[in-house]
């Protein structure tokens, strides 16, 4: 079972995306802000954190920067409207798996899940 945590203020805009992630082997948990992300990951094990571009208490990439300080083994992905070059610049060193476009579709979710599986296999995690 793969456990994914998604942080967004606008869950409705990510319904198609999350449908692409949602298979029999995936459990999705939702939250709205970085503070709750921190409390969720303190008490549960997740394989992937996906953050929206802006959360109620901080920007998505700022949340990832905060999270990796104490949880470097947690994989992350971020929804972002930045150009690929700017996203790389802003997220360099954070080890973000993927930049997800704004208003992502189910195909983006499928792509995300495929890549997550590849990374989990590389890190020798039993699926």
């Amino acid at each position: 079972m793969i456990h994914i945590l998604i942080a967004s203020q606008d869950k409705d805009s990510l319904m198609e995306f999350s449908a692409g992630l949602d298979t029999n082997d995936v459990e999705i948990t939702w939250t709205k802000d970085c503070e709750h992300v921190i409390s969720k990951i303190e008490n549960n094990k997740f394989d992937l954190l996906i953050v929206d571009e802006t959360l109620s208490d901080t920007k998505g990439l700022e949340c990832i920067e905060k999270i990796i300080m104490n949880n470097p083994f947690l994989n992350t992905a971020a929804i972002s409207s930045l150009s690929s070059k700017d996203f790389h610049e802003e997220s360099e060193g954070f080890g973000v798996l993927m930049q997800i476009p704004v208003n992502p579709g189910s195909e983006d979710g499928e792509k995300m899940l495929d890549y997550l599986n590849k990374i989990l296999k590389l890190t020798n995690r039993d699926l």
Partner: protein
Amino acid sequence: MKNGRIAVPSNGAGGIDGTRAGHFGHCDTFTFIDVEDGEIKEVTTLQNEGHAQGGCMVPVNFLADNNVKALIVGGIGMRPLMGFKQVGIDVFHDDQRPDIKPVVEDLIAGKLTEIQNDQVCGGGNGGQPNLP
């Protein structure tokens, strides 16, 4: 450093007389230097497993599995640095000298400093410490 295994991200075949790779995750080879009582006892090399976007923890696990105690880098991102700290590997920094031997000798002699959080690559900070 008196005892333990040092890892140096290396270009090509690596080895004590080889050159260092600028970013650990993308190196060709890791050179391992085993130190006993402050002396180099053995040098071995191991091919890197490769690097995928976001796969920063692959080399962290790889080096931990190979009993590495210290790593010398020219540049590293925040996530893998925190990963190395969690698995108990000390990360040292030298972004000036491309050759392996002098930085290893300095680490053994206690002349290299551990990398600080504000010396990591990127994150919108504008700086990317790396080898010349």
